[in-house]
């Protein structure tokens, strides 16, 4: 009667440390330049080596410039040091690095699946909270801090408090124009940004199995916004088809058919959502849980601090709200299928006057594939900037931002105060909603 999570946990448990904590074997580690250099430097200062560097990977995604023709330089003051120090530390430790202009460069959680680094049944950790994205492949993948990254590199293990289990079942079919982004925003709106605290959340139900792998990643991506330990989806034929032939995936693929929750498994918590009732969503506040259907109004009992920051009033309608910026990117929604759907909407049209619009592909491979299909031409023809891949303006590193006080419709995952720059007002939504809003200059349904 174990769940998928229990099976992976038990298979990786080296020792019971008592009090609900276990020593868990770690199969893959991923670092990025924002936190990677700190972890590697601190490890080296303690004269500790990386035990198995062949299973540790690193990439430049957070601070790296996304303007065309980039090198190590960044608009962030001191940003270049993160890049050069990470590079030196990776070389010294013998870690595979996907460097600034490597053809495999991209956002950690986009390239790890692309390269077949994440695989079903593995444990994978990264000092990045959106590592949960990779749970879409049936792996136990979770975010940690720098100290734990050091621990994993030095020992091949982590000391982990066993999370509780939660199953979120989406049944029924999604309506046209409704996406995985709307599913997760609906969950957050209904159960709050703390709703999954301390739980590993398995997403299941026919609406989940119907999703392609890229949409499943979007769903798992925001498990961290639910305060969950991570999200996970059982692997199936779609998972295997996606992974087959990827650079680091085994050939042939092993038999992963036992990686599923047993029918009689019991979860600590169950949530059921009728997928057919989900509407396109948008956030209004400064926590991802502060989201509503696009057609709804800002709630009456809205948190006052968030209203002031966002320049909104209770009862105000979100549809029709003027925007200054439209941003398509991030590990949530910047894969090829996201860009295709957005391009479909903007084809032959133009961004509204005065709106700054950008598309930042999630990886260099996504960028090349999009260009091969002519998506870049559709976007630039419609007045969008077309960037090199990276996290870019998903967050404000201290360099590039949007014009002060901008209202941004964004395909990202966080609408925190200042997340995209001081005073920037972020509304998160699907790439479709972002594209449609870019054209209209106002928050608009696709």
């Amino acid at each position, binding site marked *: 009667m174990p769940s998928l999570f229990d099976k992976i946990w038990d298979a990786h448990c080296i020792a019971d440390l008592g009090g609900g904590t276990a020593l868990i074997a770690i199969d893959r580690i991923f670092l990025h330049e924002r936190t990677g250099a700190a972890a590697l430097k601190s490890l080296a200062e303690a004269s500790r080596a990386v035990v198995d560097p062949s299973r540790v990977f690193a990439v430049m995604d957070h601070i790296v410039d996304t303007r065309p023709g980039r090198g190590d330089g960044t608009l962030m003051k001191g940003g270049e040091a993160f890049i050069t120090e990470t590079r030196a530390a990776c070389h010294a430790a013998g870690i595979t690095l996907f460097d600034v202009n490597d053809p495999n460069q991209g956002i950690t959680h986009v390239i790890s699946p692309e390269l077949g680094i994440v695989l079903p049944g593995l444990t994978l950790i990264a000092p990045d909270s959106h590592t949960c994205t990779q749970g879409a492949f049936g792996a136990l993948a979770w975010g940690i801090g720098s100290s734990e990254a050091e621990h994993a590199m030095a020992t091949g293990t982590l000391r982990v408090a066993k999370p509780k289990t939660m199953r979120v079942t989406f049944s029924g079919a999604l309506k046209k124009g409704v996406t995985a982004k709307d599913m997760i925003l609906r969950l957050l709106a209904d159960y709050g940004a703390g709703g999954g605290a301390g739980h590993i959340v398995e997403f299941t139900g026919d609406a989940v199995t119907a999703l392609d792998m890229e949409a499943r990643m979007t769903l798992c991506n925001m498990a961290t916004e639910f305060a969950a330990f991570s999200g996970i989806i059982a692997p199936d034929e779609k998972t295997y088809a996606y992974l087959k032939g990827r650079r680091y995936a085994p050939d042939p693929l092993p038999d992963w058919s036992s990686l599923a929750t047993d029918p009689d498994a019991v979860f600590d918590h169950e949530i059921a959502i009728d997928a057919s009732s989900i509407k396109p969503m948008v956030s209004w506040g400064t926590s991802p849980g502060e989201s509503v259907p696009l057609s709804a109004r800002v709630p009456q009992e809205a948190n006052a601090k968030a209203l002031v920051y966002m320049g909104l009033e209770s009862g105000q309608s979100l549809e029709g709200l003027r925007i200054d910026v439209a941003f398509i990117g991030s590990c949530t929604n910047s894969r090829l299928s996201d860009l295709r759907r957005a391009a479909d909407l903007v084809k032959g049209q133009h961004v509204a006057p005065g709106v700054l619009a950008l598309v930042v592909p999630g990886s260099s491979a996504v960028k090349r594939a999009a260009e091969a299909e002519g998506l870049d031409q559709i976007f630039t023809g419609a007045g969008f900037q077309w960037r090199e891949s990276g996290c870019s303006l998903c*967050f404000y*590193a*201290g360099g590039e931002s949007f014009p002060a006080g901008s209202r941004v419709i964004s395909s990202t995952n966080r609408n925190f105060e200042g997340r995209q720059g001081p005073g920037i007002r972020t509304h998160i939504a699907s790439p479709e909603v972002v594209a449609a809003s870019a054209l209209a200059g106002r928050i608009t349904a696709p």
Partner: protein
Amino acid sequence: MMPFTTLTSLTMPLIRDNVDTDAIIPSREMKSTGKTGLADGLFAPWRYLDAAARTPDPDFVLNDPTYSGAQILISGENFGCGSSREHAVWALAEYGFRCVIAESFAPIFRNNCVRNGLLPIGLARAVPDELKSAIITIDLAAQSIQFGEQLLSFEIDEEAKNMLLEGMDAIDLTLKQKDAIQNWQSNDRSNRPWVYL
């Protein structure tokens, strides 16, 4: 790491839910690849009217002289959510905090606290008013908070408690189990050879 045994201090109330790590230390304040020099950027978005000029916002609790020297921060639900940046904990610790009491914590932040000698106390209910802006005594071994005549107990898992009490380095602790790890790995190499690259 400095052990945490008991602590008597004034508490500083920052009563909000979902205080995220971007608010605790914005990315722009993480200016070097090291773990220090962060205290000045702690809560920068709320603490300064103008972050570049470092003009303090007199209405923000960190700038209220009443609370100078307070080593315990009190907050609401889901404290430390968002980015996994350990800088949030490093900044709090460097500023002088040794304990955060909240209704709940985001999991990565909580683990980061334990790794750095900062005690996270989750109360799983509204923080009693008497705890706010009060001088209280925390006894980790007894898992108790004393304020005035009252005594409140709190939950914490064994692993975190021991690590904090002893000020232990988790890596050293784990390396004591080197043999178990090696045994596990050599078995695993034959069971799942495809995992090893």
